[in-house]
């Protein structure tokens, strides 16, 4: 699952789901989600840490 080629002959852009724009868009959303999630995670950690030291 995931590969779009069966041979390396004349291969150009070869990477997972390279022939499926929808999948690539979802991966991009995943990247954005991880970055946003990191910042939200840090915000939550900060809130708890600051409350513990009131």
């Amino acid at each position: 699952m995931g590969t779009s080629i069966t041979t390396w002959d004349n291969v150009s852009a070869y990477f997972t789901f390279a022939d499926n724009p929808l999948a690539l868009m979802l991966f991009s959303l995943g990247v954005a989600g991880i970055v946003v999630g990191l910042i939200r995670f840090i915000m939550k950690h900060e809130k708890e840490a600051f409350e513990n030291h009131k």
Partner: protein
Amino acid sequence: MATETPTLESLQASLDAQQAIFNMHQAMNVEVFYWWCTAIMVMIHAGFLAYEMGASRSKNALAAGVKNILALAVIIPTFYLFGWWIYNAFPGGIIPAEAASALPWSQSMGPDVQDMGTGIFWAAFALFGATTGSIMSGAVIERIRVSAFLILTVILGSGVWILAGAWGWHPDGWMLTELGYHDVGASGVVHAIAGFFTLGVLINLGPRVGKFINGVPQQIRAHNLPMTLIGLMMIIFGFFGFLGGCIIFNGGETGWTTIYNNPTNLSAFAFNTLMGFAGGVIGCYIATRDPFWTMSGGLVGIISVAAGLDLYDPGLAFIIATCVSFIAVGAAKLLEKKGIDDAVGAVAVHGVTGVVAVILVGVFAGGTPNVGGNPAISLYGQTVCAIVMAVLGFVPGYFVSYLLKKFNMLRVPENVEVLGLDEVEILTHPYPETVPAKSSAPTNVGDLEAKGA
């Protein structure tokens, strides 16, 4: 044994094969060059890490380091998501042009085995973006929330600077095509942008607790000045990757050009990078005799000549760097007098120096022709572009940090700042054994005997 007489066709086929091999090797050389430029640029971040950890008080040393590491980690994916697209879509101004191949779901934004350029150029630009984001990092240490810093650094490192890059550092950028802008080493598009963005943030962030007593600025000492000095030297090392990445390695008959397509080479860059570095160190030493500023002078010197790195006489570069050092030191003092707490002088070192550097190209290289029918370099064009850079940096920095401040998301609470971020947020200490070791260390023979030694 009979040998086959070569025909014109067979000779042509052999020549074509040789040419194809040569072209492939040229493309590989381009890849190799930017690969190593990118690797060397990582040293800038190692330098910023050491620089800021040393410049912090020990209670905030690890928080400063973690902030730096995360900045690098968030700028790279966000530059992948939208930074590269901004560079390709906005050279004309604020209306985006077609740049679908730079969108993250494009096939060219992946391991395309036929494309030996996109990935490696993207990598170099991503590291330029990370450097830009990290410039703000040192100025805001010891009181900014990590979450707020990451939001700001993404906006700066993956958004604002690359918009400036599209305008002034792209072969079709409107600053070049309409005003003849010249900024080969990114004094404006990286340093002025980052410095003035930082100024906007600092205005809203406010000074560290204890920095000003009754309006009088106090010296908050770095807890490890030697680490800071080494960090600065590592940044200088990384600058060679940065400035190398500012040159276009075309290969073939064209050889090296600047990003504006005029001819240059690494040899030209080498003269002025080193002469600028030396002049900056000397100028800042004379102006302050302070170790921190003496080493920061190396940055000031390189940034002050970076915009015209391909054009200056080395002696002129040295003199410019020395003189601009006095301006940078003066600007830092002025900002402090105005109540701005810039812990590492980033606004002066990067912002003020960057703007001055752009204008000086108009002074010392005005009239130099551009290629491709673009206007010649002029003092007017450079001055207008320098103002654009300062405004483009300042406005988003100020307004985004203003919004974060309004929602109480910008700064850590005062009691946390007093306790130190390592204690509260990082939950570990940079030098955990220092205090007990010191308090239990025997100080005289009596102590030693009492401890059974």
